[in-house]
């Protein structure tokens, strides 16, 4: 595997990481090397430890074994270079605050304790909202947002942090088509700027289209690498086990043809991938 991509220090390096909740392992000895500048999807069944891995990379969970390096250093020293987009459902959207205020929270890290955000932070937050197409909703109370709008607020908040690595927990979960496209555009912009994106992703069908690297995870690491090399039937079966139902999957994965795959919990209304059709 590409330990050193372009001879640069990897953006994220996870070594022998085991994380357990009450002696119940959520991750078993996971290794992961993410070169700088890739869009990496983490896929795996429910309970595979995807969110746990993100949180461990962020330093929010203490591993039982192993370590995480961010640009070659412990994450505590690199906090400013990482930005986190949690699952939408992880916060209370009835909290009394506005869209702009939530986005400005992205600037709190560099402000540090006590200092208040000022005009500069406000301008940056507005610019980030512009980028996700939400500027005209900046004064809106957050309880009035749709699911897609909530997701875009979170993305704007991550953009404001101006980090080098973006960790996203299911950014496409339950969003409308418009938002999905907006997120994809954003991911491409981030890649063009040389940023690294690590996203937990559920829709296997869109992996080859949206991402260039993929990690298959099910408590332990099944495979990780460029989509064209590791995103194949064999690895998917190892990851999803018997529950993985194939609609159609090219035997030899062709680099150009997008694979059409349906996990058994395929998204409702997910298009015309009936069985038999390839």
């Amino acid at each position, binding site marked *: 595997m590409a330990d050193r991509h372009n001879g640069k220090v990897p953006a994220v390096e996870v070594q022998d990481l085991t994380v357990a909740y*009450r002696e119940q392992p959520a991750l078993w000895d996971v290794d992961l090397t993410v070169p700088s500048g890739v869009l990496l999807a983490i896929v795996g069944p429910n309970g595979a430890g995807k969110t746990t891995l993100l*949180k461990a990379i*962020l*330093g*929010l969970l203490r591993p039982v074994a192993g370590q995480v390096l961010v640009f070659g250093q412990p994450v505590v020293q690199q*906090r400013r270079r*990482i930005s*986190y987009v*949690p699952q939408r459902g*992880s*916060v*209370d959207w009835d*909290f*009394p*605050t*506005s869209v702009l*205020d*939530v986005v400005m*929270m992205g600037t*709190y*890290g560099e*402000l540090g*304790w*006590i*200092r*208040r*955000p000022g005009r500069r932070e406000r301008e940056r937050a507005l610019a980030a909202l512009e980028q996700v197409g939400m500027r005209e909703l900046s004064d809106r*109370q957050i*309880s009035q947002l749709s699911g897609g709008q909530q997701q875009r607020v979170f993305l704007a*908040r991550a953009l404001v942090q101006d980090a080098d690595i973006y960790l996203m927990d299911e950014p496409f979960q339950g969003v409308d088509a418009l938002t999905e496209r907006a997120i994809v555009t954003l991911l491409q912009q981030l890649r063009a700027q040389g940023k690294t994106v690590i996203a937990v992703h559920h829709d296997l069908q869109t992996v080859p289209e949206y991402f260039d690297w993929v990690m298959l995870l099910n408590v332990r690491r099944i495979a990780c690498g460029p989509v064209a090399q590791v995103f194949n039937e064999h690895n998917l079966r190892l990851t999803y086990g018997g529950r993985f139902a194939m609609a159609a999957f090219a035997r030899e994965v062709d680099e150009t043809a997008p694979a059409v795959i349906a996990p058994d919990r395929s998204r409702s209304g997910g298009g015309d991938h009936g069985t038999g059709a390839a």
Partner: protein
Amino acid sequence: MTAPQVEIQLIAAIVAAACALPGAFLVLRRMALISDAISHAMLLGIVVGFFLTQDLNSPLLIIGATLTGLLTALLVELLHRTGLVREDAAIGLVFPALFSIGVILISRYAGSVHLDTDVVLLGELAFAPFDRVVVAGWDIGPKGLYAGGVILLINAALIALFYKELKLATFDPGLAAALGFSPAAIHYGLMGMTSLTAVGAFDSVGAILTVALFIAPAAAAYLLTDDLARMLLLSAGLGITAALSGYWLAFLLDASIAGSMATMAGVIFGLAWCFAPERGLVAAARRRARQRWEFAQRMLAIHLLNHERQPGAEPELQVEHLWQELRWDRGFATRVVSLAEERGLVTRQDGRLELTDRGRLLAQESLLA
């Protein structure tokens, strides 16, 4: 008003405002009951502090009580974290244990001093003016006023200083941690603030009713605004209102001041719950009623759209038959038709309904949505 009356009201208002500020964050963090636990459990700290110092005015009592409050929060957290007990049960297990030790100690050893169970439960606001601060022979006011004032200032200053951190850690603890603001530090900071405030409120309203001053004004403020800063100010304002109106209720009824203040806090919440402009029961009922009529008009429009070009569907379009076709109440159908006419969705000719362009558009939109 006599001077003691003014002083009692001032103390009550200051204590209520001091409680309402951390109360707002407790409500938002869904930790309302922890304030009840703290205000009970710290009795133990006061009693132990009293035994150590033999002086009810010693600052050690305040420190002891504040530490006991923090201990309560810590024990609840530890018990909850074992995974064997839910948080509400953990609260219900921890504070009665601490509180009852305090009660036993008082009843066993402190029977002769003025630390008695009545005062502990309900406070002694009515006697607050007798406890004066005297500096160099000058009487500069009741002690309760200074204690409450200092606590209010500390709370206001801490919240003003750490407003951003409290907001972030309350809304999104995960992000707070990722950005390097320790949510645990903020949690225990807030618990410390709550404990100190509860000590101040303890003298005035006792252990049982303190929770009313923490929660009711904040819960009411939550229903009245969408902005955190405004919620904090409103919460303090409503707390003061409850304190003053409670005092006069007690005066009129010749009853307990603490009980009356807590009652008024409840009444204020009840008013907000019913009449809050957007979230109140009345506003919600109005909104539902409006939606019901709106929805009925859409149904009517879709019904007409479905049948307008249909041969032999003439009865479907008759005002007189409409209620039977749709199985509606006759009065309801008549009202819906006249509302739709007012809005220009339908026109009526010889008892026959016809969609206007606007009505057709509404029906088509509704079908697409």
